[in-house]
């Protein structure tokens, strides 16, 4: 082939060899170009003016799966490489090509033998060879690349149109691409950001370098980074960074998606604050609730307490009422007694005069009768005069008792030994022989401050009653012992006892079971003992006997 150029330009030496050499050269050239055409990766084919396929190269055959024999010499429309519906359009196109109107490459949809559609870029060239018009077409199957282009465009548009700000950098962090959202977020025009380092976009270069090293190490980084706008104002960005790898897995670029979360953060903070507020309010509410519950409990327990108190009060009132009634009865009693006392006093005093006169008269008459001898003649006269005198004395005693009741004088106290008072009392009484007297006096009894006359009177009264209760004889026991703050003197008998209906009244004045006499004795005794600051009680069992207990206060230490 070296002599190719020379062959065309040089003059032949002999006609035949020259001719043969020229034929050979032409053939070589022809073969050269034929090979070139055949071996071209693009599809090359020719069509005549009518639309019949004149030739095509191997690439065309390969592209479409038809054999040369199947398509060469056939009209385009019958090639089977065109969809039936496209035929009219393509014929029109051919006409345009032949008339020289089409100068730009055309995109055609062609059909493979298996029916699959391919997209092809076709260059048309008009050739005039040997007076004939031939269309030379170069065909490139761009199905894949068009698809890829479309995909790429899709992704490109997606990225460009994304609301998220997206940027690409090289492995050193220099920006190679920003989408409009990114540019807008940072306040730049798209082109202005290219070539800038990402580090320049943040006021915290340390964080930025940490970010990039992490990204390089692990292939991704996700976090928040303070970022600087073109106008130097900062905002908080949430970044998601990742490494873009090629098919071999080598990192070829870094991608970052960013969101301005300043507003979000503000909102979050506001929310947090609001939440805190709510929590605080909740706490308050809880506390208030607690208080309420506590108050409720208090109220409940107060109510219970109140009810208890009311119950207590009611009980107290009932008790007080009883006491009041008792006191009232006592008052009525003492009023009665006072009235009786006054009456008694008046009556008693009045009676003394007539008694005095009677006694004087009896004295005189007795004297005269005794001297006159009538006394001896009529002993009953003297006897009866004695009776009169005795009854006057008896009447006087009754008056004394009556007056004694109404005026028990304040006791004239002096220290005394109870044993002496008891013995004194016993010695003044004539106790029948059929009564056994037993003294049970504790040893070492202290002295007591008493009016010995009055106490003796009391003891005598009680002992007389005891004796009277034992007409058939019995036992009389007198005891004395210390009992707390009192000296207890007991007088008990084995007599007939006191019935239940009587025992409550025996200390009442004017109450008596005796047929004669007025019952002042025990009332006076009670008055005397109580004047001493003591008390007197009785226990009795009918048929068994009675027991009186006198308590006299011991000397206060």
């Amino acid at each position, binding site marked *: 082939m070296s002599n190719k150029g020379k062959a065309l330009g040089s003059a032949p030496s002999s006609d035949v060899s020259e001719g043969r050499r020229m034929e050979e050269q032409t053939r070589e050239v022809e073969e050269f170009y034929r090979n070139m055409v055949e071996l071209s990766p693009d599809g090359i084919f020719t069509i005549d003016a009518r639309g019949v396929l004149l030739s095509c190269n191997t690439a065309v055959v390969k592209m479409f799966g038809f054999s040369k024999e199947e398509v060469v010499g056939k009209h385009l429309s019958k090639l089977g490489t065109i969809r039936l519906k496209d035929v009219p359009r393509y014929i029109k196109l051919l006409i345009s090509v032949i008339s020289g109107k089409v100068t730009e490459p055309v995109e055609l949809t062609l059909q493979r033998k298996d029916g699959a559609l391919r997209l092809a870029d076709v260059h048309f060239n008009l050739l005039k060879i040997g007076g004939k018009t031939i269309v030379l077409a170069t065909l490139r199957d761009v199905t894949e690349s068009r698809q890829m282009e479309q995909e790429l465009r899709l992704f490109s548009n997606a990225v460009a149109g994304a609301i998220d700000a997206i940027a690409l950098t090289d492995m050193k962090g220099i920006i190679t691409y920003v989408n409009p959202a990114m540019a807008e977020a940072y306040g730049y025009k798209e082109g202005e950001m290219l070539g800038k380092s990402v580090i320049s976009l943040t006021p915290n270069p340390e964080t930025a370098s940490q970010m990039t090293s992490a990204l390089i190490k692990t292939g991704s980084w996700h976090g928040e980074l303070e970022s600087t706008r073109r106008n130097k104002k900062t905002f908080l960005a949430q970044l998601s960074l990742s490494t873009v790898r090629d098919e071999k897995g080598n990192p070829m670029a870094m991608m970052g998606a960013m969101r301005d979360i300043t507003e979000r953060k503000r909102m979050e903070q506001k929310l947090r604050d609001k939440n805190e507020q709510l929590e605080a309010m909740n706490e308050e509410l809880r506390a208030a609730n607690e208080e309420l519950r506590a108050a409720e409990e208090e109220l409940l327990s107060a109510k219970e307490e109140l009810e208890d108190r009311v119950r207590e009060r009611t009980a107290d009132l009932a008790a007080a009422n009883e006491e009041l009634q008792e006191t009232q009865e006592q008052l009525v009693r003492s009023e009665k007694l006072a009235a009786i006392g006054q009456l008694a006093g008046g009556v008693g005093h009045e009676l003394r*005069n*007539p008694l005095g006169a*009677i006694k004087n008269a009896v004295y005189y008459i007795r004297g005269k009768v005794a001297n006159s001898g009538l006394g001896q003649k009529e002993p009953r006269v003297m006897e009866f005069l004695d009776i009169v005198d005795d009854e006057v004395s008896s009447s006087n005693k009754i008056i004394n008792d009556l007056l004694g009741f109404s005026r028990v004088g304040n006791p004239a106290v002096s220290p005394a030994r109870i044993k002496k008072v008891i013995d004194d009392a016993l010695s003044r009484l004539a106790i029948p022989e059929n009564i056994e007297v037993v003294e049970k006096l504790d040893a070492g009894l202290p002295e007591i401050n008493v009016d010995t006359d009055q106490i003796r009177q009391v003891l005598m009264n009680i002992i007389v009653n005891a004796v009277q209760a034992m007409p058939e004889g019995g036992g009389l026991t007198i005891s004395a012992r210390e009992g707390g703050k009192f000296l207890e003197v007991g007088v008990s008998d084995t007599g007939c006892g006191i019935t239940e209906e009587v025992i409550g009244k025996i200390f009442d004045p004017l109450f008596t079971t005796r047929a004669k006499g007025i019952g002042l004795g025990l009332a006076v005794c009670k008055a005397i003992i109580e004047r001493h600051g003591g008390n007197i009680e009785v226990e009795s069992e009918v048929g068994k006997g009675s027991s009186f207990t006198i308590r006299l206060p011991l000397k206060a230490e």
Partner: protein
Amino acid sequence: MGKINILVVDDLRSIRLTLGGILEDEGHNVVVVEDGYQAIEAVKKAHFDVVFMDIKMPGINGVETFGEIKKIDPETAVVMMTGYSVEDLVRKAINDGAYVCLHKPFDMEKVIGLVEAIAKEKNK
């Protein structure tokens, strides 16, 4: 035993007659009056060695009468008579110089003895 002049002052007739009668029987001169006024008149007219004076009387009581009598005749021994046990009036009378206070009904033996004692005092 000496004879003395006795005045009995009591509003009760039975007391006047019995007491007066007994004392007269003993041999004394006895005058009886019913009330304090009469007593005062009597003492004005004559001297009495002993006056038995009842305390409770209508009009002026025995103690007041005693007071008047003392003014007229201070030498007279006045014996107060009472049916009462102890009284402010009696205490007053004793303080004022009454001879003694007797409680009715009397033990006449004692009364007669008392009169004799007073008579002896007056050397009669």
